[in-house]
């Protein structure tokens, strides 16, 4: 059974338009699933719904989020938070805003382990040191005492990865974890995340807009348009032959340096019109 199973999840702006339209997807232990789509397609929204950190302006109107078989949406808020906190973690997009600039790195990793999960301070600290070594940070002891501004972007992202894995979560949501980084650093970080995920057998929901990145780290992917899953495929099948016209167009718009002669085709208007019609037909169906 999948560790995370989202069934027909619908989310909308309070008294506003729908943001997610009956989204269903599964992530098994040890699997990486990519969530792809253009900005505003709702890919981050899915990650936020799973982690219970949706902004107050939106509401869930239907569906289930099954975590290890338990529907999170049916739990009282306190139990839900406890369950998510114990088994899930986030690798955020921007490593600078995710770290508190006025605190040293060490406590930012260990405080959650001590205060929320009840570890002893010394266990938490040695765990933090081991993890920093695992994410290939030289001199972990020095870094634990450093402030975020003393470290490079790649370093900070490594710290957030270490922090995400600290409590051995069974599911990690990575929300565009490398968009702020250089290609060379991106490669190191992606290999690091993939390696850690494989070693720890974590289920990983990987939000990105970069199909190149998907092809390197994911086994399966969901393509979103306007909050609707238009394609759910294995990565190898997808890149061999995307099924939905919109996914095909998205792939055609992605530049490849190996194929400079190929013209870059923006997603054609008729494809957009067709996929919008699908969304409209869905909304007219009246199923929330």
């Amino acid at each position, binding site marked *: 059974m999948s560790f995370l199973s989202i069934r027909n999840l619908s989310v909308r702006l309070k008294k506003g338009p729908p943001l997610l339209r009956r989204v269903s997807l599964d992530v098994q232990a040890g699997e990486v699933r990519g969530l792809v789509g253009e900005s505003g397609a709702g890919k981050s929204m899915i990650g936020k719904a799973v982690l219970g950190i949706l902004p107050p302006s939106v509401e869930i109107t239907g569906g289930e989020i099954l975590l290890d078989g338990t529907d999170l949406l049916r739990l009282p808020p306190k139990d839900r938070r406890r369950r998510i906190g114990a088994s899930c973690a986030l690798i955020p997009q921007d490593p600078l805003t995710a770290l508190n600039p006025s605190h040293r790195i060490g406590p930012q990793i260990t405080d959650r382990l001590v205060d929320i999960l009840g570890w002893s301070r010394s266990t938490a600290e040695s765990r933090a040191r081991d993890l920093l070594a695992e994410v290939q940070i030289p001199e972990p002891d020095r870094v634990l005492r450093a402030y975020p501004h003393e470290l490079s972007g790649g370093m900070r992202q490594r710290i957030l990865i270490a922090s995400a894995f600290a409590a051995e979560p069974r599911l990690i949501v990575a929300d565009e974890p490398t968009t702020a980084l250089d290609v*060379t650093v991106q490669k190191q970080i992606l290999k690091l995340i993939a390696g850690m995920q494989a070693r720890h057998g974590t289920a990983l929901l990987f939000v990105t*807009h970069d199909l190149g990145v998907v092809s*390197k780290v994911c086994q399966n992917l969901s393509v979103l348009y306007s909050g609707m899953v238009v394609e759910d495929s294995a990565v190898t099948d997808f890149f061999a032959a995307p099924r939905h016209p919109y996914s095909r167009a998205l*792939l055609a718009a*992605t530049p490849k*340096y190996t194929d*400079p002669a190929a013209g870059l085709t*923006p997603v054609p208007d008729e494809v957009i019109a067709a996929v919008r019609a699908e969304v409209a037909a869905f909304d007219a169906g009246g199923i929330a």
Partner: protein
Amino acid sequence: MTDLYAVHDLRLSLADMTSKPLFGAAPRIEILKGLSFTIPKGAVVGIVGGSGSGKSTLGRALVRLLEPSSGAIRFDGTDITHLAEAQLRPLRRRFQMIFQDPMSSLNPRHRVGTIIAEPMRLHGLSDIRDRTARALDHVGLPQHFATRFPHELSGGQRQRVGIARAIALEPDFILADEIVSGLDVSSQAQVLNLLERLVADLGLTLAFISHDLSVIRRLCQRTIVLYQGQIVEDRATADLFANPQAAYSRDLLDAIPLPDPAQPWA
């Protein structure tokens, strides 16, 4: 072909605010460490490098938003390295810049028409209304967009406004600093196609700063690779991709994630 830009031993240092003591001056840190290159008229040159390699600093020096510490920048025969603002003013019309983030480079309280017209007003041009209309036309935006505010536009449309503002002055040279990195692939493809057409139609010279080599490969005939403030490679783009010389160029190429699961990624 004559050179529009001739840059010789360009050096630029800035105050290092991260290691500034509480009192006293911050130490200077050298960002550009002796760059020499030329940009011929009509060329499309890519500038790539990692973050902190100095690519944006180089761009800002070319359009003299920053003053070099030493070396020389000649623009169409004129030495602009240390020109004072008053002497630069008439030249500024000829080298324009398009910024990375259209949300922060377009005044949110002005309408698109005003935003495009502002630099023309500053340079005292006539027929501003017609020129604005032509600029919108060039970037493929309908005329009624002139009355819209930036927040009403999509990312790709905002970037088109940035391009319209730059080309409205009929410059010789445009510096585009990471202008597609914030866009979705579809808008990115549209903006790149547009830029390519404008370069051909208007006879522009373009320097295109990017960290995305696939985009550079598509757009630029020549590429300058920067690493820690120095040029490690400056060659025809096709040669660079076929046979990268510098170790850093090879690393850059190897790190690009191609949308193809079969590509080995050692």
